[in-house]
């Protein structure tokens, strides 16, 4: 909070608004039941992905020289929130950040899907000649079968590394998230590494980046679930009046609004922290932990308000809530991040607690 706003120049704001407006229109045009069902059936909607590529969204964080939009990091990350708000069933968030991280790995960029490897996929690196070989397992990787590249946390004799791998040749075992999105696994045995870079302790790992994306996406999806639930409450009539008139319904939705507002605040604060490179690892832990808690509560309230209708495949609420239930667990569920925050706080001690909290 006490940081300097990295994006306070008016030109940057204009660019951000332009990109977000255009992306919002594109998502609204293309995302809906048809697209959700197609991706759940295992199809990769090439035409829709190409439309995102054409608009330059997966590269939005790269410099103009790399065919990117040169968007500031905090602005570009707002695309993840927006994608969540539309339940976009495509690997835009992963590729957006993947292309950003690639700039610090092999420096390359292309139109392929880049995905991020989750927590339990820490890989072992070995020096071979000038390069590296890698062993390990990639576990439940988002969109793995459709990816051209995977960026993962690795380990070279105790030194944390960030590695770039080619994903095309991997033998992916297919699985899916609760929302029916691909979550695939593969084994790596003496596999080649395209690029590796030191990832010093206390700097955000790939898992941190993934957690940040899921926090932002979930904050966006919660915002939509609240809108769906309030609209439904105003339309659905029982006992001769809209159910929104019942105080029990109002009180629940007000509580949900508090959770949604809190989640949005926590996720955006984490995004600002990584953009400003200030307390990023801790702020992402806080963001993911707080959003994860809000996700479950919000989904439960939205479903209670929509009752049987919300429990159908037909109603679109479930495309948002099933994502919330997946995203809160991916890249570390609440206890994983809470333990890290708690260790930090307890190490700071009673007298150090307020300086810690107020310094964030």
């Amino acid at each position: 909070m006490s940081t300097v706003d990295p994006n306070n120049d008016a030109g940057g704001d204009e660019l951000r608004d332009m990109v977000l407006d255009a992306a919002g229109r594109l998502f609204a045009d293309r995302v809906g039941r048809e697209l959700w069902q197609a991706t759940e059936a295992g199809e990769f909607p090439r035409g829709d992905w190409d439309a995102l590529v054409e608009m330059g969204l997966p590269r939005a964080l790269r410099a103009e020289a790399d065919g990117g939009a040169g968007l500031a990091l905090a602005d570009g990350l707002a695309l993840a929130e927006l994608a969540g708000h539309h339940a976009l069933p495509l690997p835009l968030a992963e590729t957006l950040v993947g292309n950003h991280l690639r700039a610090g790995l092999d420096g390359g960029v292309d139109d392929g899907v880049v995905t991020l490897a989750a927590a339990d996929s820490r890989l072992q690196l070995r020096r071979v000649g000038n390069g590296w070989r890698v062993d390990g397992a990639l576990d439940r990787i988002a969109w793995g079968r459709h990816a051209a590249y995977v960026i993962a946390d690795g380990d070279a004799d105790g030194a944390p590394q960030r590695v770039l791998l080619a994903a095309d040749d991997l033998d992916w075992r297919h699985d899916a998230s609760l929302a029916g999105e691909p979550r695939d696994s593969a084994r790596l045995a003496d596999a080649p590494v395209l690029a590796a870079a030191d990832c010093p302790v206390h700097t955000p790992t790939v898992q941190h980046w993934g957690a940040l994306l899921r926090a932002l996406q979930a904050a966006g999806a919660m915002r939509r679930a609240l809108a769906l639930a309030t609209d439904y409450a105003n339309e659905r009539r029982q006992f001769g009046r809209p159910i929104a008139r019942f105080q029990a319904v109002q009180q629940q939705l007000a509580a949900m609004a508090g959770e949604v507002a809190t989640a949005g605040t926590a996720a955006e604060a984490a995004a600002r922290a990584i953009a400003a490179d200030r307390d990023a690892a801790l702020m992402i832990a806080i963001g993911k932990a707080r959003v994860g808690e809000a996700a479950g509560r919000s989904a439960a309230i939205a479903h209670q308000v929509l009752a049987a209708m919300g429990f159908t495949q037909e109603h679109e609420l479930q495309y948002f809530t099933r994502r919330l239930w997946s995203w809160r667990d991916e890249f570390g569920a609440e206890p994983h991040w809470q333990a890290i925050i708690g260790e930090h706080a307890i190490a700071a001690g009673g007298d150090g607690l307020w300086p810690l909290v107020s310094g964030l």
Partner: protein
Amino acid sequence: MVSFRFDPVTLPASTLALRDEVRAFLAEELAAGRFTPHRNSWGTFDAEFSRRCGERGFIGMRWPQRYGGREASALDRHVVIEEMLAAGAPVGAHWIADRQSGNNILANGSEAARASILPRIAAGECYFAIGMSEPDSGSDLASVGMRATRTDGGWRLNGTKIWTSVAHRAHYLIALARTAPPGDDRRAGLTQFIVAIDAANGVTTRPIHNLYGAHEFNEVLFEDTFVPDDMIVGEIGAGWQMVTGELAFERSGPDRILSTFQLLRQLVARLAETADARSNVAVGRLVAHLVTLRQMSWSVAGMLERGASPELEASVVKDVGTAFEQEIPEIARLLVPEQASLTRGDLYGEALAQSVLSAPCFTIRGGTREILRGIIARGLGLR
């Protein structure tokens, strides 16, 4: 649908410098043994402490200099009160005057009231109470029955206020009274009056002890109490708008987040040697809540600074913040196998006891949780 936005604020260097200044002041006070940091901060009345705050310019900070203020920003004021509460400083004497009564007088009071009262508040010498609730008017505040009748040069008040915190030690209260019978609009015909708490003028204060035996709130009876015209706050009949405006100040501050912070602090200290996976998770969860709530509260301060009226956002912060305050003792007691005690003499046990015993009031005072959620629901377009 309204979606609530809590835009971040950037603290200017001057605000950060002020934070250092407050910290230095509090460290001095602590070193001199002038307060113990484990008490119920804004429930603790200490006139000497308030005077020292006044000397340092920590009260009425946003007001014009001619009224004893320093024309500080909302952010500057926020950093001062946040540091006071985090340190567990005894700010209870001047709290209400600084948080709301003084602002109300500055915005709506007569020049005479401003000139005679505000400088004394800012000096930490003049304390206020809130005279809203009555025996038959709690959440339904528009139903207040206190009558004000016109007389020569002013008004006469008759009726009873209740739950009036610090009335037994304050110099004034601001009373909400009926100046006209309720018509079609129940909210019309209400007016706010600045009333000196003076037995000679028909004001009687009777103690009401709270559930742990402390005398914090009161019943206040008014019998033909005279209030001169220049102690009317705002237009006759326009009291309701002022009351709701005041509540935005009352609801969003760090006082709705930090009521049990001293317990969290003692808990963290107590866990230094015994922390395990379970306590790390539990403490980490609370800290994640605190950090996020703090951002939201600061964001509301930013809105106040920009001149917005964040009534809805303030209600959200109070709803989420007070639930958090109530959770801290519930979680602490599961982590440390030590019973709460006000008398055993250790800081943890006392903070736990204080927190358990005062927790119920967090979601009552300043508007109940249900009333706040009703306000939020209206903002969502549900009513």
